[in-house]
């Protein structure tokens, strides 16, 4: 059967019902538009946050630990005997031969690696706050972290200017009223106490980092740990942070030390994102579904009004499926135009949002709302909406075209 006849009839039906058609299109357009906006906003904020996270954290951290608890001396000595309640011997052994290990990693790693010493201490300046002290090599650090660009006062290199110099986070500085140049006291767990000079202040944007992490040289950190020469962390920065999981596995396979990707380190956060994604996707799906109700209504109305025409077409010898397809095409036409209008609305809304600035707790500044523009949003929102529209038309169309022409013809005569 000639398809363009069906298209022609469908087109005539929708164009002779301008108001209804426009309402249907508006429904679809709204659904598609708001879905695109939501997707752009949601992914925008998420990407923004992840970027912050990825900028602040090492992409892969190699630690001087094994995934499984080390085999204990008692087990080695008395292999045949089942031991229980034996306290594990688990001192921090440090990473062996860090220099050669880094050299070998650098040979294939798509990024760079730097050594660090991670320990805990208490900073004392009027008040006392427990912090994580990270000993770094200022020259190598710039290659593996954004610390240099996060400096608000001083520079990373200033760590070598004064003995026991430290760089602290802005939030901590505010909390303890510390200014650059001040002298603070650092106390380690086993009692070691040094007094050190604050040579810089950084701001990463992540509260827990800005409040609880300070940087010193490798040497200072080793003194605080009481283990000179120890390196207990290698920090890797990748050109592409998204492959950190794969790289971490490979590194761990190669050198045996526990290697944690930033994704693994933030798995709680990422899984909360997944929940959020699921909720938002559900809402968007419901929105698209609801927007197709208008189409359902219109096709129901048209098929009702057109009962006689349906009977005529069937009595003339058009197949039931052909007659049905007319009404499905009408829904598709409404859906298609609505979808394109929805794309425009979605883009306009996204653009509108991106013009608004809000206070960002991460950076502490007013920044434009970040919107992620992706063709995928448009394709998926449009596609689902089209599916919903044609699906919504299917049932009334099937019901109406099933009718026996004789019933209608008798009724009309």
């Amino acid at each position: 059967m000639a398809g363009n006849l069906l298209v022609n009839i469908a087109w005539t039906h929708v164009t002779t019902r301008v108001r209804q058609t426009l309402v249907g299109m508006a429904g679809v357009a709204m659904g598609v538009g708001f879905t695109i906006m939501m997707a752009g906003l949601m992914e925008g904020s998420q990407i923004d946050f992840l970027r912050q996270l990825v900028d602040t954290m090492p992409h892969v951290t190699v630690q001087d630990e094994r995934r499984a608890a080390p085999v204990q001396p008692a087990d080695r000595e008395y292999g045949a005997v089942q031991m229980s309640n034996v306290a594990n011997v688990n001192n921090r052994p440090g990473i062996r031969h860090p220099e050669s290990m880094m050299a070998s990693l650098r040979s294939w790693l798509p990024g760079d690696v730097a050594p660090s010493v991670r320990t805990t201490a208490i900073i004392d300046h009027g008040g006392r706050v427990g912090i994580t002290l990270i000993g770094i090599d200022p020259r190598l650090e710039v290659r593996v972290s954004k610390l240099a660009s996060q400096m608000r006062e001083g520079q990373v290199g200033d760590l070598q200017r004064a003995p026991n110099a430290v760089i602290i986070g802005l939030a901590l500085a505010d909390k303890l009223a510390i200014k650059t140049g001040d002298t603070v006291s650092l106390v380690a767990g086993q009692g070691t106490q040094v007094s050190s000079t604050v040579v810089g202040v950084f701001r990463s944007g992540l509260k827990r980092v800005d409040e609880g992490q300070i940087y010193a040289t490798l040497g200072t950190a080793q003194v605080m740990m009481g283990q000179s020469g120890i390196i207990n962390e290698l920090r890797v920065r990748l050109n592409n942070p998204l492959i950190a999981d794969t790289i971490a596995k490979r590194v761990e396979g190669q050198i045996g030390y526990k290697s944690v990707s930033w994704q693994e380190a933030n798995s709680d956060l990422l899984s909360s994102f997944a929940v959020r994604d699921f909720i938002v996707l559900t809402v968007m799906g419901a929105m698209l579904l609801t927007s197709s109700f208008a189409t359902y209504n219109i096709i129901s109305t048209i098929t009702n009004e057109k009962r006689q025409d349906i009977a005529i077409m069937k009595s003339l010898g058009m197949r039931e499926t052909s007659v049905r397809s007319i009404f499905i095409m009408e829904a598709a036409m409404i859906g298609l135009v609505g979808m394109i209008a929805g794309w425009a609305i979605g883009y306009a809304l996204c653009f509108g949002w991106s013009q608004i600035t809000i206070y960002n707790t991460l950076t502490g500044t007013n920044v434009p709302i970040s919107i992620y523009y992706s063709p995928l949003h448009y394709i998926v929102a449009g596609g689902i909406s089209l599916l919903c529209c044609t699906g919504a038309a299917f049932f009334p169309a099937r019901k109406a075209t099933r009718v026996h022409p004789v019933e209608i013809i008798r009724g009309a005569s």
Partner: protein
Amino acid sequence: MSEIALQAVGLVRRIEGAVSHTLVNGIDLAVNKGEFVAITGPSGSGKSSLLYLLGLLDAPTDGEVIICGQPTSKLSEDDRAHVRLTKCGFVFQFHFLLPEFTSLENVLLPMRAEGKMSEKDMLARGLDLLGSLGLKDHAQKRPNQLSGGQRQRVAIARALSNRPEIIVADEPTGALDTSSTEQVFGILREIADQGRTVVVVTHDPALATRADRRLHIVDGKIAQTFEGQKLAPEPAVAAPTDQ
């Protein structure tokens, strides 16, 4: 000479329900190619019901309708639709034109639905048909811009568009004035004279005399058949309208 175009064998149409009703009660009928048959009978006697069966719009409870030698009782709904599209043109009392389309588009509809001809040939045939029915100037008008008689002629043109062997018409002049009625019957007569088979239901016995044969139906059965001398030849038929 007498090639059978349309045949009914033991045709029964019953409606089952709380009150069962037999609309058509055992009709045997053979209509020759080029024959013009009129069906008359009291209201409710089952004329329309018979016509729907003959035109494959409805399926019989029992019996068989044979169109151009092809039995139809075993055909699928789609195949029956195709027979309607290609072999059987329907004209109803009410014109049943699609309201959004022009006369020409309505006439083109069955041709487009079949999709065998080129658009150019379809257009030529559509205009030709409308012209032959005196509607040359009304091709671009929509049904609500036409008179009742004009609409009915458009409906006839549409029924003819796929060159069907058989034309069935259910009181095609029921809603028309005398002169339009006269015109429509003249056209149907002409169609039969050109070799098509025409079956018409009418209430008007005078008009029925213009047919080759008249079947009188009572209670779903053929009660009487008038043929030959009972139906006066053409010139005599014109007489009543001259009065």
